[in-house]
């Protein structure tokens, strides 16, 4: 089908352009990520053993929270200026466009997190080879989070008090990703095999890729009636 790739890339390009005009949308969650990661040593003390023990978990929780933050506005500007209606009415299949929104979101939120994470990891005294595993788990995990999060954002678009609601909806669903992501990195730090965790994250990612866009499309249509 000719128009599919065009529709998908049009949505992605549009979101990237919009973000270029408003860099805060990308930078704020990133700063939030760094700040949350700094909270833990400030709160629990700088002992190196504790840092190395907590590092994977803290990085992952911070990434999760930062992603939730950026998800709030996924459909917000589209909703406000009326382009959401156009997206829903467009002849392109809505799941595809939903996938495009999630892809743009990942490029603007998940990917930067992955790229910034080594800096955080260094402060937690994570050895270099573990950092690689961490980045891989974060990459796979944030993709899943963008896809899942799009569903939640679609369900809550237009609701006034949607802030904490979105997090409440997404967090239980994100637990498996958090568990496997963070613990796989801990396993790597302990020298244990990480294949199982990576495979799970990849499998979950595939599942989300195939199912989430349809749920997102359904949610968009429902929310926008």
């Amino acid at each position, binding site marked *: 089908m000719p128009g599919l790739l065009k529709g998908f890339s049009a949505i992605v390009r549009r979101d990237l352009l919009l973000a270029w005009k408003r860099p805060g949308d990308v930078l704020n969650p990133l700063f939030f990520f760094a700040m949350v990661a700094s909270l833990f040593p400030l709160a629990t003390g700088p002992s190196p053993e504790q840092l190395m023990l907590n590092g994977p978990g803290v990085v992952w929780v911070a990434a999760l929270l930062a992603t939730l933050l950026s998800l709030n506005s996924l459909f917000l500007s589209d909703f406000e200026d009326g382009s959401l209606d156009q997206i829903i009415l467009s002849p392109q299949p809505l799941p595809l466009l939903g996938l495009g929104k999630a892809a743009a979101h990942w490029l603007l939120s998940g990917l930067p997190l992955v790229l910034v994470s080594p800096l955080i990891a260094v402060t937690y005294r994570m050895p270099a080879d573990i950092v690689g595993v961490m980045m891989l788990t974060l990459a796979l995990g944030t993709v899943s989070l963008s896809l899942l999060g799009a569903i939640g954002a679609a369900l809550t678009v237009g609701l006034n008090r949607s802030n904490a609601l979105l997090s409440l909806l997404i967090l239980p669903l994100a*637990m498996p990703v958090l568990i496997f992501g963070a613990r796989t990195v801990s396993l790597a730090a302990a020298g244990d095999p990480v294949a199982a965790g990576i495979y799970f994250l990849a499998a979950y990612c595939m599942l989300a890729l195939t199912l989430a866009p349809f749920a997102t499309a359904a949610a968009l249509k429902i929310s926008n009636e």
Partner: protein
Amino acid sequence: MWSFLHKLASPPHFYGLSAKMIPWLYAAGLVAIAYGTVAGLFYAPADEEMNDGFRIIYVHVPAAFISMSAYMVMAVGAGIGLIWRMKLAHAVAAGAAPLGAWFTFLALITGSIWGRPMWGTWWEWGDPRLTSELLMLFLYFGYLALRAAIDDTAKADKASAVLALVGAVNIPIIHFSVEWWTSLHQGSTLLKAGGPGMHPDMLYPLLAMILGFVLLFAALLLARVRTEVLHRERRTRWVRKLIMPAGEAA
């Protein structure tokens, strides 16, 4: 059979039929629970490890079972409502959710009480069942919160239905991931339900309790769905006739 189900899907028929079923379900449930409680508390032989403390399973296991079944009922109702647009199905989902949350809460509390003598603490993250139940409680909360946040009933029905279905797909994944996670935790202890080799004198009261809880849940669900139906259909003629039979009022 189909015409029976078809009739059942119509709100006024459901309203009338459920009214007749509820007392029987309560009665049967009460009998099963009474037998299960007495037999379980006083007649079942004591467990080797936990002596009489294991008797908590007679409330914990049924509660946990219902907490998961209620989610399935909710998800199936949501799915049927979404796909076939049956109003009654949405009402069933709406009625099942608060009940499921209560039973999940009950499972968590009884699980925690049971764990206290075993673990020395009121909470053990290393127990997969307890942690999974907690996450399920969060799923229920999310569903109820979404419903509450949307004013229009039809919209709330459909939005929460999508959420329920997404949650349903995730539940086995959540269970699996928590189990994997706790298996990494050294020295994790599991809430044993006595295992498959359970002595029949221990097992029968448990089955009775589970059955009793199921019957009670069914009664409660029907009661709540009745109320939902009444509220949703408040503008229809059959409800008017019900409240104000001809001959009364002006």
